[in-house]
């Protein structure tokens, strides 16, 4: 680091950029997922140095949240069908720093594997008591928590007898434009992974496992709900914000 963060040197303003984590992500051109064919750029991407525009992002507050946005089981008159689950975890950056007060948006299929969407017409029932949409903010320590029902798997037409493994879509802002992430959370030991191009598009096997929540018996609520823990890691700045790693590894709430 030859230039201090935010320093003005001569005529320029230098801001510390974020790590580039290409190895983690799936390629835009991935033939096993048919719809990528006409939707990936053919020209190589142009390197964008991180400037003030890329290291900032919208500071969104609680005004975006409805009272029951974090509880997908209580958004209607009655309760949805399915296995009630808590999904919780921590959002950090790759330096280990928690990402506090950031918006987390989720959407998912119901317990039968059907989305409340006009484009989803496969013969599985809709649930009048389930929309499948949630929002929350991480707390000061980067923690988030939803109550929902476990989504079902569903078929799609990518290849013969194609089924999506059960998943919950997650959208995160982080604190910089570079940190924006839309991804999917999967459940442990799903037997459908092997034939799923979304799963297989992530080149590194260890990276795939980072999309899987772990069953969290310690956080289940007796006679109420099972629990899964899923920690999410956004890009950091490649700097170590804490004096010792132990401080951040210890995280039993």
């Amino acid at each position: 680091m030859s230039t201090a963060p935010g320093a003005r040197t001569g005529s320029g303003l230098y801001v510390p950029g974020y790590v580039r984590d290409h190895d983690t992500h799936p390629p835009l051109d991935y033939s096993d997922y048919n719809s990528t064919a006409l939707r990936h750029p053919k020209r190589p991407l142009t390197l964008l140095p991180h400037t003030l525009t890329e290291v900032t992002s919208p500071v969104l507050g609680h005004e975006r949240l409805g009272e029951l946005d974090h509880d997908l089981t209580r958004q209607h008159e009655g309760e949805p069908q399915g296995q009630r689950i808590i999904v919780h975890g921590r959002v950090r950056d790759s330096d280990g720093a928690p990402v506090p007060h950031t918006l987390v948006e989720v959407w998912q299929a119901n317990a039968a594997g059907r989305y409340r969407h006009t484009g989803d017409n496969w013969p599985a029932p809709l649930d009048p008591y389930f929309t499948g949409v949630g929002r929350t903010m991480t707390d000061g320590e980067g923690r988030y928590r939803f109550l929902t029902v476990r989504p079902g798997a569903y078929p799609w037409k990518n290849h013969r007898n194609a089924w999506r493994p059960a998943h919950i879509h997650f959208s995160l802002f982080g604190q910089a434009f570079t940190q924006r992430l839309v991804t999917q959370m999967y459940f442990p030991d799903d037997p459908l992974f092997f034939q799923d191009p979304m799963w297989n598009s992530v080149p590194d096997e260890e990276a795939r496992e980072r999309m899987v929540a772990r069953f969290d018996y310690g956080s289940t609520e007796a006679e109420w709900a099972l629990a899964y823990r899923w920690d999410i890691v956004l890009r950091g700045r490649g700097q170590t914000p804490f004096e010792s790693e132990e401080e951040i590894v210890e995280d039993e709430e």
Partner: protein
Amino acid sequence: MSTYPTTPSQTVGPYLHIGLPWPDGPFAVAEGTPGAVWIRGTVRDGAGEPVTDALVETWQADPDGRFDHPADPRGARAYPGLRAFGRCPTDGEGSYGILTLKPGTVPGPGGGQAPHIDVSVFARGMLNRVVTRLYFPEEETANAADPVLRAVGDRAARATLVAAAAPDGYRFDIRLQGEGETVFFDI
């Protein structure tokens, strides 16, 4: 040096509409705000067909080139009425629209950057977002000096980053692939 490996991106899929659009998403400023401009465009695929299930997001500086964010070394400062972030799903014609204020000059490594808006596109069939930048057609001098635009060597490719003037603002079409393919950035 990364301590924690990052979480991979996955596609928004075909059903993003239940989860991501906000009623006020297209309005980075309220309708009727003096100086507000519409950024409108169509997203097209490699066959030239409109992409009717995409989501376009924008992020930008305020008209003074500042950000309401702690990373701005001049201090976070809210610009009254401006969210500076827009979000709009494409419609049945593949079109989006975001109402905003034109950003100012933003400080950059080599001096000022021409006014610009960072644009993300998410869609089914895209395993990660793509990112581009919108520049303004009337800023010819600033655009010619902008380090990001200058780094795009090919003149025709560079032109894909400059919006066109429209009666109520600007037109910024996005071509994901093929003829007139938009320049996308590795961010």
